[in-house]
C-alpha cells in the first residue's frame, strides 16, 4: 500500500527541466449541468501517522469558487475558474486550454470530518484530513 518514505525522499529533485503536459479532461460519471469542459487537477497524496494530505493544482481558481466536500468516504473537490477575467480578450495563440477542475477520491481511512483544513496558495489546494482517533495506529505493548 504505502511506499517507504525513504525511497521517495523529502525534497524532490529540483534540477531537472520541467516538461509540458496536456491537461487531462474529466470523464465524469454524472454529466455536469453547466456547459464547458472540466479538467482533472494533478494531485499528490501522502499520509502521515495522524493525517492524510491531498495536494491539488488548480491554477486560476479563487477561494470563493472552490467547493470541497466529504460524504460517504468520498472526497469531492470542485473548482471553477472565472471566465469574466477573459472579457474583451481575443485569443491569438494557444498552448493550453482553460476550464473548471473537478476530482474525487474514495478514502480508505476514517477521517475526522470536523478537523479537515484547506489552504489555497499559488493555485495549489492543500487539504489536510486528520484521521479519526480510532483510525490512528496504536502501539500495542507485547507483554
Amino acid at each position, binding site marked *: 500500500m504505502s511506499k517507504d518514505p525513504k525511497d521517495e525522499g*523529502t525534497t524532490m529533485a529540483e534540477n531537472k527541466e520541467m516538461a509540458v503536459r496536456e491537461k487531462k479532461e474529466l470523464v465524469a460519471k454524472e454529466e455536469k449541468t453547466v456547459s464547458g469542459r472540466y479538467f482533472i487537477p494533478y494531485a499528490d497524496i501522502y499520509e502521515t501517522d495522524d493525517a492524510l494530505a491531498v495536494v491539488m493544482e488548480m491554477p486560476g481558481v479563487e477561494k470563493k469558487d472552490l467547493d470541497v466536500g466529504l460524504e460517504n468516504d468520498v472526497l469531492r473537490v470542485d473548482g471553477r475558474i472565472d471566465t469574466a477575467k477573459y472579457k474583451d480578450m481575443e*485569443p491569438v495563440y494557444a498552448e493550453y486550454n482553460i476550464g473548471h477542475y473537478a476530482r474525487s477520491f474514495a478514502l480508505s481511512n476514517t477521517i475526522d470530518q470536523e478537523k479537515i483544513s484547506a489552504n489555497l496558495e499559488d493555485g495549489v489546494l492543500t487539504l489536510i484530513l486528520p484521521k479519526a482517533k480510532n483510525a490512528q495506529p496504536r502501539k500495542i505493548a507485547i507483554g
Partner: protein
Amino acid sequence: MALFPDPFSALTSFQQALDALRTSDWLEAGPSGGGAYPPMNVFRKGDDFIIITEIPGVKKSDLDLQVKGRTLRLSGQKALAFPENAAVHRRERLSGRFDRAVTLPVAIDPDGVKAEYRDGVLALFLPRAESDKPRTVRIG
C-alpha cells in the same frame, strides 16, 4: 469580437476558440517557441497583447521575468515538499526548473510591460509600441 455574448455558452465557445488556435505558429519563431514549460496563451486586447501562463505551485519569489526588445524570458523553479515521515501514495505534480524565452511577432514597449501573479496564474501585459501601431491612412 465579443467573446462572451451569452454567459451560459461562454466557456464552451472560449474553449473551442483556444483549441482552434493550437495549430497557430504565432510564437513559434522564438528560441524556445512551442512545447516548452510553461505553456502560454496569447490574447489581444485593443492594441495591446496579454500573455497568460499557468504555473501552479511556483512562488512569486522564485520567478524571474526579463524583457529585451520583443523577447521575453521567463524562468524559475518549483519545489515540492513532503513531511519527513510521510508515505507518498500518489505523485502526479511535477517539480523542477524552467527557462523559456519567446519572441513576439510585434514590437512592444519594454518599459510598459506589467506582470501580475495570482492563484498560480501569471499574466503579462504587453503594450504595443507606438511605432508598431497601425495607422489609418487617409485616401486623398
